[in-house]
């Protein structure tokens, strides 16, 4: 089974297959790993690769993965080949139109931008209060605000669209 990982803009092919001895092999670019893998607890993988033992914690949402291993973390996307092909035609990058959404329910304290505003990467967009803390949502890139989906004082559900930056 073939996949394509998108890590920081880079595209990396990942392939999973059984070799003639029946062993599970994962190939990352040109590096082949014969793996002994067990899902010992929910989304917690015990991997032994040529004697090296890893306990890998993976948190996946659709094609996005957060992996924690030995104190390091990695965020990336992984698509199967067909999906990668489709995406590729449409542009796999994460630039372009960015929708800023809440990750959790909360209250809109301040809306710092209006439609038509120019923003720089890192500029504050909206301040949301959740779990007793105020959090400033920042722009992931420079661009123009094309939509503001909330008003001050409003209570929103998780996933609510706050702002669109283009």
């Amino acid at each position, binding site marked *: 089974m073939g996949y394509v990982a998108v890590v920081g803009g880079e595209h990396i092919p990942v392939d999973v297959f059984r070799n003639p001895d029946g062993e599970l092999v994962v190939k990352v670019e040109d590096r082949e790993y*014969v793996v002994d893998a067990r899902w010992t607890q929910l989304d917690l993988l015990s991997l032994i690769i040529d004697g090296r033992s890893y306990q890998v914690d993976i948190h996946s949402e659709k094609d996005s993965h957060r992996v924690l291993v030995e104190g390091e973390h990695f965020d990336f996307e992984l698509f199967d080949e067909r999906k990668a092909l489709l995406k590729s035609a449409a542009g796999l990058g994460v630039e372009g139109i960015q929708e800023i959404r809440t990750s959790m329910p909360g209250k809109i304290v301040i809306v710092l931008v209006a439609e038509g505003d120019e923003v720089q990467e890192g500029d504050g967009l909206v301040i949301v209060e959740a779990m007793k803390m105020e959090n400033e949502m920042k722009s992931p890139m420079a661009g123009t605000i094309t939509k503001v989906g909330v008003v001050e004082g409003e209570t929103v559900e998780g996933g609510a669209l706050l702002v669109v930056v283009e």
Partner: protein
Amino acid sequence: MFKKVLIANRGEIAVRLIRACRELDIPTVAVYSEADRNALHVRCADEAYCVGPPPSVESYLVMDRIVDVAKRSGADGIHPGYGFLAENPVFAKMCEDNGITFIGPSPAAIEMMGHKTVARETMQKANVPVVPGTELLDDDDLARSAVEIGFPVMVKAAAGGGGKGMRIVHEQKQTEEAIRAARSEAKSSFGDDAVFIEKYVEEPRHIEFQILADRHGNVIHLFERECSIQRRHQKVIEEAPSMAVDEDLRMRMGEAAVSAARAAGYWSAGTVEFLVDKHRNFFFLEMNTRLQVEHPVTEMITGVDIAKEMFRIASGEKLSIRQEDVTMNGWALECRIYAEDPFNNFLPSPGVIQTLRVPGGPGVRDDSGVYAGYEVPLYYDPMISKLCTWGRSREEAIDRMKRALGEYVIKGIKTTIPFHLKVMSNEHFLAGDITTSFIGDKFILETGEHGEGLRDVSLVTAALQMGRRTREGVSVSGQRDKGMDAWRMMGRRSRWVM
């Protein structure tokens, strides 16, 4: 001793206090909001009563309802924990008026220390050094005073503590917004939006002394805690003792802390907080008239169970230990573990904890209010656990903390465990070179040198994860499979090329 005690709190501190009561053989009454029916403190307590809807202003902060539950259940004492009603003199008074012992200091002492400006005056009279600052003022006067004192200044809520309702202001144009934000947080956290301004001591250490005082005039201290590692003025890592404190400074600060407690007519456990600048000058910051989040590190180096002492003191007992009996043994660290995503600006990450594996072995203590299957609710503080380690030396305590953090598995939500692991490897932290601006100045949350090799491991894992979802994917053995593949591996040629 008490016949029955009501714990007017939730989360890990409610569990901590129920543990203390169990060890003292005191039956406990839990209160809970509708969002907390499945919380651990409800399951651990002997009795449990719902006191209202999820928002704390409608449940945990409704004083007369909590007192009513205490009376109806026959509790003769109420422990407020920290936060919520812990430093509310009206509540302490209401308990007294209803014949229930408030397990904390007197309403007068809470009131005096709770109003930061009154506390400052009291300390000045007792010759304890304080930081220059203002009284409570309206927005315009505060803005003017900020200019007079000279930037940077700190806007602070008169009520409460714990980093809430605090904002640092570096230049004049930020003043208005900082006052607004501090008032807003103070209002929602403490129900009081009064704020004042203080000179901001740059690159200070935050060092506090633990106090124990009985109702018979005996006051002792249990040495200091170093609490300089903070995010958003909220402590995240604490240790005891402090590398910045030598025997002479410890004696002088300890004496000042005891004087501060005496000046306030204080009994119960309490904490006197100081700022210490690079020249080892110390300034009274505030007194916390409650059990602190970080009390475990002091318990670990002294062996004194501070929570249990609070119950003994409140029931009228004299302190069982004198100052000269308190000894310091080894070093202890605490990492506060939050349901927050350290790689996404520490955004809160509530949700269901799917898997939990708590570290164990020597020198490890975990204080938590969660369990596997528990849903961390949206409504309250996102701290889910306090992980503490003890060692004969600071180095051993740090080595243990790294080891324990590495063992800790919390799945389903994002936590600050990876953040703490990075701090434990930071050269400035290892050298003890820490101030309250450590996280801003001396700490980068980046992938380390081993990252490149581990990246392939993470890609391997994600590919296997995708395979689990689809029939097309190459399947991986589950837990119950035989280990024959692994056994055959013995004879295999090495192919690991990392």
